[in-house]
């Protein structure tokens, strides 16, 4: 039993099945990320004035990631083009680059996440805030029993609003030092993980879901890269279509990042 139009295009639509299928799937993905972006807009517009963070993310790393993904989108297209001209060796080279670029992207993302998870905001009993990256916790540090000390590389501020806009000149010129806080002075302590505020929540969720899509796409592309030889030998046209379809998914994931980067990093 043969399903028609898996390789040749249907005359009235001009498409083969998988191409229509992937565009339909991408339409649903537009609605998925659209729902998340709508959540972002609502949360930001509804936030108290002055309480929405700016400049919390490293623009340099974000830019590098943007260019890595853009480059990977290009190598993806070229991998497909190589298949079209039946140059399997070049296909292998291009998609090897795609996979490496993707893994580098994920590596940088992991570093960024880690950076947030070791960045602490400590609310002190006297109403001030200690904020900075963790240097060390003393061996006997125990928040529940109020023992020990914790050392941050950061600063102490009187108003939480000062921690929000890191682009402001006051934040830019602030001196960062080693700040040691005793557990007895701590009212509450938390890192810049998802539950810190709605910005970190939507940041981790949006970029996390995006990263899962990158991972999924990388796995699929790796599968074709590593095990595609057999189908290439028997049915190169069908294999080319698979590379095109997976490439379209990859380009979509890049498209999402094209909006994620400015929205989260630059505004």
């Amino acid at each position, binding site marked *: *039993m*043969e*399903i*028609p*139009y898996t390789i040749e295009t*249907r005359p009235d*639509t001009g*498409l083969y*099945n*998988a191409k*229509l*299928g992937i565009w*339909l*799937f991408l*339409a*649903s*993905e537009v*609605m*998925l*990320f*659209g*729902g*998340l972006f*709508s*959540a972002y807009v*609502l*949360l930001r517009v*509804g*936030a*108290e004035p002055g*309480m929405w963070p700016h400049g919390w993310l490293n623009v340099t790393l974000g830019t590098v990631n943007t260019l890595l993904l853009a480059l990977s989108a290009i190598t993806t297209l070229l991998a497909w083009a190589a298949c079209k001209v039946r140059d399997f060796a070049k296909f292998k080279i291009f998609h090897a680059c795609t996979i490496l670029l993707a893994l580098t992207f994920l590596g940088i993302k992991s570093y960024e996440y880690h950076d947030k998870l070791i960045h602490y905001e400590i609310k002190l009993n006297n109403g001030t805030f200690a904020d900075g990256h963790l240097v060390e916790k003393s061996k006997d540090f125990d928040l529940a029993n109020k023992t020990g000390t914790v050392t941050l590389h950061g600063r102490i501020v009187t108003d939480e609003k000062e921690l929000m806009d890191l682009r402001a000149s006051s934040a830019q010129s602030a001196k960062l030092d080693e700040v040691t806080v005793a557990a007895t002075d701590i009212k509450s302590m938390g890192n810049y*993980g*998802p*539950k*810190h*505020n*709605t910005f970190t*929540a*939507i940041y*981790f*969720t949006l970029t996390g*879901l995006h990263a899962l899509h990158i991972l999924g796409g990388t796995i699929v592309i790796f599968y074709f890269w590593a095990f595609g030889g*057999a*189908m290439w030998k*028997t*049915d190169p046209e*069908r294999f080319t279509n698979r590379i095109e379809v997976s490439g379209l998914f990859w380009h979509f994931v890049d498209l999402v990042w094209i909006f994620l980067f400015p929205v989260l990093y630059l505004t």
Partner: protein
Amino acid sequence: MPAPHAPDEHGHAEHHEPNFWQKYIFSTDHKVIGIQYGFMALCFMLFGFFLMLLMRWQIAHPGVPVPVFGSLLEKILGQPAAHGAISPDLYNSFGAMHGTIMVFLGVVPLAFAAFGNYVVPLMIGAPDMCFPRINMASFHAFFLGGVVMLVSFFIPGGAAQAGWTSYSPLATTIPTNGQAFWLVGMVLLITSSLLGAVNFIATIIQLRAPGMTWMRLPWFVWAQFVTAFILLLAFPPLEAAGVLQLMDNVAHTSFFLPTGLAVGGQLADRSGGGSPLLWQHLFWFLGHPEVYVLILPAMGIVIEVIANNTRKPIWGYKSLVYSVLFVGFLSFIVWAHHMYLTGMGQKIATFFQATTMMISVPSVIILTCMFLSLWGGSIRINTPMLFALGFLPMFGIGGLTGLPLGLAAADLYLHDTYYIIAHFHYVVAPGTIFALFAGVYFWFPKMTGRKMNEFWGRVHFWCSLAFMNIVFMPMFAQGIKGMLRRMSDGAVNYSAARVPGAIDALPGSVMQLNGVILWAAICLGIAQIPFIINLFWSINHGEKVGTNPWRATTLDWQTPTPPPHGNFVHAPHVVRGPYEYSAPGHAEDFTPQDEPESPFAPLTPNTDH
């Protein structure tokens, strides 16, 4: 051409006979998958029905141990069912799961996935769905989602309790992991539906047989096409919202939790800054189109059964097509009529009221075409036709009672009362489910080569019709009298008996109806027994019939019974519309879509193309 690693693809005649697992559990054949979906959906619906019976007992006799099943419940569930009585928390979880199971594990899989999978490829003349392996993955995701939902009953704290609508902050602050299970289950079910939607749309666009133009499609296919588009574009925002609520539950974020939230009298240890309304918008963005997912395939079945049993073409085919497209489109921009009481501004409420009123127009057009199709028909009464005819007034009542709800002013009073419950159950229960019964009786002979027993089919119909109405009609009265929904004590604490001096306390007449409804629900359950027995018994003992016992025109009836792998021996070539019944000048009162034009027959005008 075989795919490289595909032991489950039956591509060649000399292929080995698939084993049990390949044939029944991991099949990629759309007919097997359709039956898998259908069987599981019917099981889930029965389970959901049972949950409802327990709830109706609690409403009619608050705090009284459930007879017969009480001790069993206590044994299985422990404390929440202490002494065999249904505690308020348990009632709430039954309510939430009844809705979730009926909608997402019952009606949608049966109406869309089961009937769609089995019938659509046959009706369009295709050998299978576009992506058979994705089809199989769809079913398994659905199955997993169902397992997760059922397992949630047994975890500490029990199943989800915040309604099938899972509103925050309640859904996040309830001390049970059941809500997280619900969300994970929903993500699996949504994934299943999304994959299915891609498959349906691609199949209908790409795999129509030669000659099967868009305006020659049976309207059932149009209905499934629009349903698939609704699922494709409306489900993802709920999936997004589900992820966000899961983050709230598990990672302690505050997407939907406002600043200053207090739980149990204490300020919650949350960052706040979130918006409960955001959840409602994202949920109802799916929630409203979802109801069209529930009704459109059912309408499709009714059209097919009516055309077949009136022996004449459907009245207004073009109107039906444009109406269903318009309904699908509009369904995306009416959702906030579920949120009139959230304090929206007047302008936006008016916008949604206007679109909601507009969407009733194509719905009425569809119902009118169904009624007009009966006029002048040579009506044949059999069980499928009885259910299809029963659908008409039942959907009429359900639809018309929805009109006051679409008007913001009236909805302010009726929202969250039993009027709402009556309205939507009328559309789905004696509405959609009757149509689905019609579909089962109608396509049973194509799947098995035997008809279901006609006498017991009629018993099933008449009893179901009577008891459905006795169950749901009184609820309109209760709702108008002010009885609110989701009350685990059956509103007894608002009754005149309990609070004699209170203004607008519920009168005894309203409270007594709870007892009537309970008995009617039990009888409704008993009325399903003949159907269940009939279904299984007829597989091997039903009246044997040929390949086209209903003498139908559509391509699904022009195959062998049951259709073999690949469905058609030769790819059909379609030369006429789907409802060429009683065409003048033909010897038979029906002409199949792919029957070649005889050079000797007089030319008959093709009215629909």
